[in-house]
């Protein structure tokens, strides 16, 4: 166990940048097409798919960015020893 904790894990800088860029690009696309988005996302009925799928998309890519960012900053969960 000790060996695994003393080995410094490589920090995920590349993943942070990749997911960050993807997320930022998605934000830019959405906010530069604000009018189309607000209009079509609030049509109701079947159009409910738009906001739900968008929310899922951001939860994956922006969530992955957040996870990698915290690791890159050295914020990791406490390693507990397995019994």
């Amino acid at each position: 166990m000790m060996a695994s904790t003393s080995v410094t894990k490589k920090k995920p800088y590349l993943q942070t940048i990749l997911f960050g860029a993807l997320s930022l690009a998605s934000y830019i696309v959405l906010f530069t097409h604000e009018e189309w988005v607000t209009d079509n996302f609030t049509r109701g009925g079947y159009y409910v798919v738009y906001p739900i799928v968008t929310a899922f998309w951001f939860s994956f890519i922006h969530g992955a960015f957040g996870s990698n960012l915290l690791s890159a900053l050295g914020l990791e969960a406490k390693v507990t020893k397995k019994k």
Partner: protein
Amino acid sequence: MRIFSALVLTLFILVSASTAVFAGGGGPSKNFTKGVFLEVDKVAGTAVFQASDSDVPETLMLGEDVDAGKISLDQKVMVTLQEKEGGVYASNIEIMFLDLSVSKFITLMVVGLVGGMLSGFIGSGGAFVLTPSMMSLGVPGAIAVASNMCHKFPKALVGTYKRYKYGQVDVKLGLVMAFSAIFGVQVGVTVQKAILNAWGNAGSNLYVSLVFVVVLVVVGGYVFRDAIRLAKHDADDKISPLALKLQQLNIPPMMHFKTAGVRISAWVTLPLGFATGMLAATIAVGGFIGVPGMIYVVGASAMVASATELLIAFVMGTWGSIQWGLSGLIDIRLTLLILSTSLIGVQLGALGTTYVKDYAIKLVMASVMLIVAISRGAKIPGYLGDLGLIAPLGTATASVLDFISFWALVAALGTAGVIITAAMVTGMMKARREEKALATEEV
């Protein structure tokens, strides 16, 4: 006995399900329309309105409270309709999509970050402060609730994933609670509608605030006492005497929850989920009963209960978002602005739990609940005045109470942020010291 018990349980589920169908979903009420005003006739008190779901413009009568001079043309609005004296009037008009200034951007992102941290740490939170914050920025109430709901499930998904990786989520307990909670929501909505019909808006507001204050003070006070007791001894939690008794009730079907390490009758978990849902429909924060319920009634640890609550929030949030989305009320821009920081906050809160003991989670939860109770309590005199039960409040008193109400919410979020950060930093420093000590020992 076993067959009888299972039959009664099935009946209970069927009755709940049929109530759910009749209640017609937990989404918004149907007395509104969306669209654009094309022309306003100030003299006649009418306006030509193009509804989004119709091809032909119609003429709407404007209610007494609507200022015809303030109606902006060619901007998407939400119109509340009211039937009066044989005709349908537009009783309230709100602009659907507010222009987002830099300060609004920043406000939403800051609230999102701390709300996310709270969520990751105690399993729920954020919603109670996000909706009022959005409304104070000028977002119509229904849009604020809908956009907030749509931000809740992606955040809960990411939080669940993280805490599942830390081995804290009891998936089975979460799913059982979530699905029984959905039925609870339906009944809660029916009760709300009945109260709204009988006593109007002020009566409904008073009911919501009273439930809020009573539940938060009683449950929050209990959790707080427990947290302080544990903190004094820096002890790990023990299973509550009530949960131990209930676990001994051998009424089939029995359910085994592996991660929580509990074997308990479905007769305990299903009504608890149901109550969580009912409360969620009433005060919009089901976690305030769900988490203490899982701790003190089911017998799970605060760590597992708060993690499992995230799964419940995910299921209920997705379901709720679909309901609100079907009515087209989600402003995705608001949702995504909050998500931009809350998806990071929720992971920070989640990893924070790995550095603290159970009582830290209870302490944060209880503090938040008690401060939020003050916020809601400050609203009660106003509603009592509206109902004519006490003399109407003066303008000065009303504005002081509004001030207390809003800032108590901000204080709740701030306090939570400070306790979580402090607990996490202390925990991390302690872990580093231990690691270093171990490393020197090995050398």
